[in-house]
């Protein structure tokens, strides 16, 4: 991937010969707390709901008649428009994306609010969605990262069309990047095309108003219980706010996560809680890094009477790692596993554009994956124990969704 900055526009290019589909990602960094939770989600949806030239239906026709796949997603730190299309449809895809980014009317505002409300209610029918919603909301409390389904639902009716128009202006006045991965002839032609046609993608530096948060804002362990009386399984998650990708701890937490519960069928949680104790079909750990924070968590879906046993199992596995560092074979295997997964998840143009664009927007640099792997391979076994110890010592948040009769207190 090469980075060009011409006329203030950041353009990242990755040539992939012989690939029939091209991917373009347009990144916009979100540096401010939303006035109401859900504004950016609503904006992302409304950008696909009609322009001065096309109604929502006409726009959908224009994209789908040529099989140009487009999605616009609002994430914690950015809004991203992703397009994937056959390489011969480049001009059409770019014309349409320019039109919707510049000329959206937001006329479907009321309808989109109505649709979003319904989709959130529907999503929350899913017990696992309920669990993660509550977990993130309670972990981040008033921080902008707490913008979950239920928080959006509370704020949705306060949002006006003017709020969306204002958020759109902010979007166009933000830090930006265009990322292209595909089979194109000449870097210069592509760069000239964007300089001529996408001058609105000039990147504008803005102050970041979002605070960093790298540890839990709780004094002791907390339990949030959500009753769901017809559930066959209990959904259980426990976790912590921890250091993120700009910290030297990132590689260490990544390895702890891999060994504990994200390498696949041989992770410790999988082997000890699933294979040996038959507690679950689904058990894992996760380390999710964001710009201003990161989450480390462990999850299990288990028979409700096994909730305590599962929580004990989480603790046991952390304690074992805190007391005894992984041996060299396990540590080397975890390093190789992370390296292999990174190759696996950067195979096609869409994955490459997305990953590299993200690294660039977060200020990590285009060589971040290589540097991250270097950190991974330099990590020592005792570092893993230290990370496990950190987690054991920090107060944790536990959320459970299960039938009321199994409710307990910490």
């Amino acid at each position, binding site marked *: 991937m090469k980075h060009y900055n011409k006329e203030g526009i950041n353009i990242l290019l990755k040539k992939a010969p*012989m*690939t*029939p*589909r091209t991917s373009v990602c347009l990144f916009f960094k979100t540096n401010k707390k939303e006035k109401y939770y859900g504004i950016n989600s609503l904006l992302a949806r409304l950008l*696909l709901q009609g322009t001065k030239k096309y109604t*929502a*239906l006409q726009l*959908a*026709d224009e*994209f*789908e*008649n*040529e*099989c140009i796949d487009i999605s616009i997603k609002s994430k914690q730190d950015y809004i991203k428009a992703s397009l994937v299309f*056959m390489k011969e449809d480049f001009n059409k895809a770019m014309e349409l994306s320019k039109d919707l980014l510049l000329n959206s009317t937001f006329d479907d505002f009321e*309808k989109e609010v109505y*649709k979003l409300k*319904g*989709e959130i*209610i*529907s999503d*929350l*029918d*899913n*017990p696992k969605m309920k669990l993660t919603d509550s977990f993130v909301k309670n972990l981040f409390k008033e921080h902008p990262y707490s913008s979950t389904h239920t928080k959006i639902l509370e704020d949705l009716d306060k949002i006006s069309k003017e709020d969306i128009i204002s958020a759109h202006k902010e979007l166009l006045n933000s830090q930006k990047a265009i990322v292209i991965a595909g089979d194109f002839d000449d870097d210069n032609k592509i760069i000239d095309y964007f300089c001529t046609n996408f001058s609105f993608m000039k990147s504008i530096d803005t102050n970041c108003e979002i605070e960093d948060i790298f540890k839990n804002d709780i004094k002791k362990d907390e339990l949030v219980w959500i009753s769901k*009386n*017809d*559930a*066959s*399984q209990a959904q259980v998650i426990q976790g912590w706010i921890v250091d993120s990708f700009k910290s030297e701890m990132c590689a260490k937490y990544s390895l702890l996560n891999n060994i504990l519960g994200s*390498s*696949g*069928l*041989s992770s410790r949680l999988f*082997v000890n809680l*699933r*294979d040996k*104790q*038959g*507690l*679950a*079909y*689904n058990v894992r750990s996760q380390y999710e890094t964001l710009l201003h924070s990161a989450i480390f968590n462990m999850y299990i*879906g*288990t*028979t409700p009477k096994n909730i305590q046993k599962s929580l004990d199992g989480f603790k046991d596995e952390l304690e074992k790692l805190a007391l005894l560092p992984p041996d060299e*074979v*396990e540590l080397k*295997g*975890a390093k*190789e*596993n992370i*390296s*292999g*997964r990174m*190759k*696996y998840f950067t*195979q*096609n*143009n869409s994955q490459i554009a997305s990953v590299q664009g993200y690294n660039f927007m977060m200020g990590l640099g285009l060589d971040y994956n290589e540097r991250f792997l270097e950190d991974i391979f330099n990590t020592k076994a005792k570092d893993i124990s230290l990370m496990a110890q950190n987690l054991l010592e920090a107060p944790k948040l536990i959320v459970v969704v299960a039938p009321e009769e199994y409710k307990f207190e910490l």
Partner: protein
Amino acid sequence: MAEILKKENIEFPYLEKPLSVYTFKNGHKAILAYKDSPMINISSWVKTGSINENSENNGVSHFVEHLLFKGTTKHKAGVFDRTMEQKGGIINAATWKDYTFYYINIPKEHYKLALEMHADMMVDALFPKDEIGCAFNPDGVAPKDKRERYVVIEEIKMGEDNNWRRVYKNINSIMYQSHPYKREVIGTKQIIANISQEEIMRYYKTFYTPENITTIVVGDFVEEDVVKLIQENFIFKDNSNIEKCKSDKQIPELKIQNPTTVVDYAEVNTGYLMMGALCDSAKNLKETIALDLLSTILGDGKSSRLYSNLVEKQKEPYYYQLESCHYQFRDGDNFFIEANFDLDKKDIVIDELKKELDNLSTIKEDELKKAKKRALVNFATDSEMVCDIADSIGYWVTVAGDITQAHNYLKTLDEIDCEYLQNIAKKYLKSSMVSTSLLLAKGEN
């Protein structure tokens, strides 16, 4: 070492080189596809799934899938998982009605070891009793020693909490009269808790035979090396003398005999619906393509009929998810509409969806053009990653029955016109021919 009976080169859409298809004298097939990639995908597709089960062993195909990871003569349980993952591999398996497949995605420098261990797992599974766990009553006290039986039972419970899986389970059971497709692939708690190790082994020996298995390797490799590795490591045991497992009769059902509606209840705040029809086999290429196209026109994307008519044109839409899908099977395809909706609108929803099905008797040229391009682009999409190429090949071999059908797809696609699509819609998708499954909130009618 298995001898090669024949080798064919077969064109496959969007791949740089033709596929190399090897048939060995014992019936085992290997298909090699070249793709410039840092990863190699190795998989074996077994032509068995719930289609070969009966009411006493329902779920055994899926249980075998879990247990194949539990050790061989050479490698104890866990060694395969650990070795592959410590080399950067991603491993897993899946079971469906017509097939079971096992795969490894691994950085290419480790593919030789991966292929050796994959072959070992496929031909020499031991099913150790201590890994299966003791039999027990799933409605009684749980045993202390909870092993793989219990893992599968947790998977069944997970499905019970998944609203869409419940709706699908119910519609699947009412669409068929007696075909084994009627049953859930995952089986029942009662059977999984009690099936014996001997019965599991018998199933394995009956269906994991060379002529029933296709091994697929996709990536950047030296072909001769891969073929040699397959020949040396896929050493099948002779199980011809065993008493074979009995399967239920597999008489294709291409039309629902008594279209009906089934209603289930849960703690939900929205309604869930699947409306389904039975159609001809995936082996009927022209009809399968027509059903793909009809599914795109009816319910794929925001410009589809369902979304544009029932969501975008409404001031206050009451659908939260709305799409159609076409499932291909060896003994007859399924066509579904899936809707998640406002509970107050249940009756309107059913009427509207039935009308949309009947309206498929008229197809416009621009709709056909869009759907044809989507079919082409789907092939391009499936050619991007080694795992997707392997899955696509696996489908054509095990479900459609012939790898050459993939190449024929594009030629046959050209032959299809609006009139043909309309006739297929009238043949299979009239509203009077579908069954409906609903999941509603407790207390709703």
